């Protein structure tokens, strides 16, 4: 059933390509239908997994031979971590469609690229054959490029090309690692479950782990390879920045965890400290840069770098609580970043046509767009990590894990959270609650539309629900990190390292 999340997205894309160009309304409905059905399949998959968890935590969906002579398999499967992220993809995809309801320029092509990107993302999260995972990972590159280059705004061609090349550099590094691992493993397959049994020599792990980890983590915004993220997010149209920050950055973190860390535990042990320091720099640096931005979208873009730093820091703790916090943070940040970008890109920028905080300060948007202001206040609170929202549970777990693994880093990461409060309050104050005298002849702004309200409510409800009842997701995530779990158990088993 879960495989239909992938097929429906690509099927939707194919239908859209064949649709006549003058039917924008039909294009929107097809996109909404495909993403809603994808979400439905994701939810049913999650419920099915929760009610009847498989004994070894891995739910096989499809497994057929693809190319015998290389040992390639079409192997789709899921465990709690992939299901968490599939669910995230489903939610953000629906919200993104709702926030793109006003795309009038080449509508059907927009949604065709959009669905292709989503299909690729679902595919990555559900592949347990690493060749297949890589195929989906690369399929996601090109739609991103066109979504930004055609429908983007500020310096769109630059941002799109930078994003595409950074992604491609990362995937080239991953491919070198995959090919080398294939040769060294000698299992004549790319099956993750086969590879995890192979005791790779330490000397091999020491160089191949950083290669693959960084290759994936480029997409997760690992400092100093994060620079594609702010420019890409800013240039992208709203739905694309929601997907970029919400889901695509998670592809990188997911790949780093699922492939690099799982296969090469000895490599992780060697590189744990350097990578944790990079993650920490990302947290503090991203927050500091966000503090001084004039462009509203850049504030959110850099905040993504900062929050993804928590994911990477959590991964490097190599403790159950830190690792599960990292996965939870992936989910939480995906929802919150999606929401923030929706407010900035769709609700504010599409109406005021400026993202300059000083210009916005004069508009008193809290009066003109009370719904946008309210959404941003709540989303900002969630992003700051206030209790009751998903961000709190996630970042708290990461900090606890970090405290156990490397206490001084945890303190610095805490500083990052405080700066986070500062930049969000500053942006919020300037963008919505400017106290300048109102200009007399301000043109009235369009009211917030129903699709926007629905999308915002969907995302808000999710972050609150996870904040109040994180156990729902933790029940999925934690078994995957149990020391006896066949895949990720190796990370928490301790002795192996």
């Amino acid at each position: 059933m879960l495989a239909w999340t992938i097929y429906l997205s690509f099927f939707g894309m194919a239908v859209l390509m064949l649709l006549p160009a003058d039917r924008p309304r039909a294009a929107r409905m097809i996109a909404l239908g495909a993403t809603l059905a994808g979400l439905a399949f994701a939810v049913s998959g999650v419920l099915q997994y929760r009610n009847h968890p498989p004994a070894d935590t891995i739910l096989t969906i499809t497994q057929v031979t693809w190319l015998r002579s290389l040992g390639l398999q079409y192997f789709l499967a899921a465990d709690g971590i992939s299901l968490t992220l599939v669910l995230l993809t489903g939610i953000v995809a629906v919200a993104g469609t709702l926030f793109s309801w006003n795309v009038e320029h080449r509508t059907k092509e927009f949604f065709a690229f959009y669905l292709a990107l989503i299909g690729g993302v679902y595919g990555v999260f559900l592949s347990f054959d690493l060749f297949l995972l890589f195929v989906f990972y690369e399929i996601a590159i090109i739609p991103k490029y066109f979504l930004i280059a055609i429908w983007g705004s500020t310096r769109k061609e630059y941002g799109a090309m930078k994003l595409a090349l950074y992604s491609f550099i990362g995937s080239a590094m991953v491919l070198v690692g995959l090919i080398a691992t294939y040769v060294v493993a000698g299992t004549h397959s790319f099956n993750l479950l086969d590879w995890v049994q192979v005791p790779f020599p330490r000397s091999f792990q020491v160089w191949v782990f950083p290669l693959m980890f960084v290759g994936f983590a480029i997409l997760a915004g690992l400092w100093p390879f994060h620079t594609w993220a702010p420019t890409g997010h800013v240039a992208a149209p709203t739905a694309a920045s929601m997907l970029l920050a919400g889901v695509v950055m998670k592809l990188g973190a997911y790949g780093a965890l699922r492939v690099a860390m799982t296969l090469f535990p000895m490599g992780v042990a060697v590189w744990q400290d350097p990578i944790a320091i990079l993650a920490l720099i990302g947290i503090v640096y991203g927050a500091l840069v966000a503090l001084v931005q004039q462009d509203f979208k850049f504030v959110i873009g850099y905040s993504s770098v900062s929050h993804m730093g928590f994911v990477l820091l959590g991964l490097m703790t190599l403790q159950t609580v830190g690792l599960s916090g990292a996965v939870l943070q992936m989910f939480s940040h995906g929802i919150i970043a999606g929401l923030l970008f929706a407010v900035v890109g769709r609700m504010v920028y599409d109406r005021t046509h400026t993202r300059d905080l000083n210009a916005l300060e004069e508009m008193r948007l809290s009066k003109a767009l009370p719904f946008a202001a309210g959404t941003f206040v709540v989303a900002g609170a969630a992003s700051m990590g206030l209790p009751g929202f998903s961000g709190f549970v996630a970042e708290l777990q990461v900090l606890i894990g970090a405290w156990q693994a490397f206490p001084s880093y945890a303190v610095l990461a805490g500083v990052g959270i405080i700066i986070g409060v500062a930049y969000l309050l500053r942006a919020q104050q300037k963008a919505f609650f400017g106290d300048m005298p109102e200009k007399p002849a301000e043109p009235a702004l369009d009211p917030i539309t129903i699709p926007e309200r629905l999308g915002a409510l969907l995302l808000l409800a999710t972050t609150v629900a996870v904040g109040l009842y994180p156990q729902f997701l933790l029940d999925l995530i934690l078994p995957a990190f149990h020391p006896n779990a066949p895949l990720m158990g190796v990370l928490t088993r301790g002795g192996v390292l």
Partner: protein
Amino acid sequence: MNTVNYLGLLRLLAPETVLTITGLIVLFFDAGVMRRQSIPRRQQVAAFLLSAGAMLAIGWSRHYSLADPNSTSMLVIDPLTQLMKQVILFLTIFTALVSLESKFTPHVGEYFALLALATLGMMFLVSSVDLLMLFVSLELTSLSLYILTAFQKDKLESSEAALKYFLLGGVSAAFLLFGMSWVYGLTGETNLIRIAGQLRDRATDPVLLAAMVMMLIGLGFKIAAAPFHLWAPDVYQGAPTPSAALIASGSKVAGFFVLARMTLAGLAGAEGSGVWNGFAPGWVPVLAVLAVLSMTLGNLAAIAQTRVKRLLAYSAIAHAGYMLPALMAHNTMGTIALLYYVTTYALTMVGAFGVVAVVEQQTGSDAYDAFTGLSRRSPALAVCLLVFLLSLAGLPPFAGFFAKFYVFTAAASASTRSLGLLWLVILALAMSVVSLYYYLQLLKQAFAVDPPAGAKIIRPLPATLFTLVFLALLVLLLGALPHLLVNKLQAALVVSGL
């Protein structure tokens, strides 16, 4: 003296015979019956005749009796050669169909007859295992291609390109012949298998190494590997676009196949080693030099291009660089990977040149600007271009991705010392990042930039559009289900000796 059984020979060479007759029929039919018709009509009839003949040859090539595998004759006929001939014949058919769009010459019959002759040369090239036969078929191919390049008489560029092609081709043929003469001097043999037998214990003979380098120079020219690539940009640019399509596709397939035959069969035992920190003299390190230069130079020079045919030429040089590591692996996996790569690459190139041919015919230019807003002016054509370029860039789910993956995996698992050629794979992947940049530049022009005011809608002929869509689907299909071709190649390779 053993007598030659001409009837048996004719039966074995039925596909080649059919194609020769087809060429003659096309020539005379066009000169006789069709003389008074309009040019498009004559093109249609000639293309139809050529395609029908080629299809007949393909059909015939499937029925043959296997010759004695131990024979040391001039030609071999085995499942692999027949498969490669089929590939080349299909490429010729596609080229003929793409030619319908272009109106560059009134000499329709001669043009299509030359296409047949060039194809004939390539087919013989695939079958040759003898230095003499190899050289003769190479010359047949090359001479036909020189003329095909010069065919656009009203364009100075075309003649210039042909002259350059001819002169450089002549020099390279001289190198090849000179190298062959040394090999003959060393061994007293012209048959590749027997040469390999003679050379087995003299692999590091300096005379052999010199001869080998000279032969590789000659063949390196054929596959447009740097530093013997100088003709390629000018020829691709100057030649009529359909001729360039054949040079970039069929001729490339034959060139790589004969290079593989020459090195794997004829120079077996003289491989040397291309492992990082472990180089040993032989043909592998020579090819390593060609590969490094081709990838680097081809990709970096492609960035600066502003005309699509030149871009494709530099990308062809780069692709020659990507393919060589498969040959350097000198094992079955490498050979399958090479043949899969060159086949899918050739299909992609015919398609890409087909798109260029349409745009060039209707806008008069192949500059990037001519492609501005293509997705609005002809959505189907733009999607085809997208498929071909992304396949060339090596992105899934297109064939180019799987081809690269296969070649790189073969190269990395080549040597007994594990990860032997991984250094080349790393360079190749780094360079393919560069390649994505320039392909995206062109795609951006076609998709992201709005068409200029007053830009015409582009309407390809139905036959051409059908061919291009078919090719795009084929590129997608072979990328998603590579076993369709890989299993065929594997089965053929097991039976035949290469």
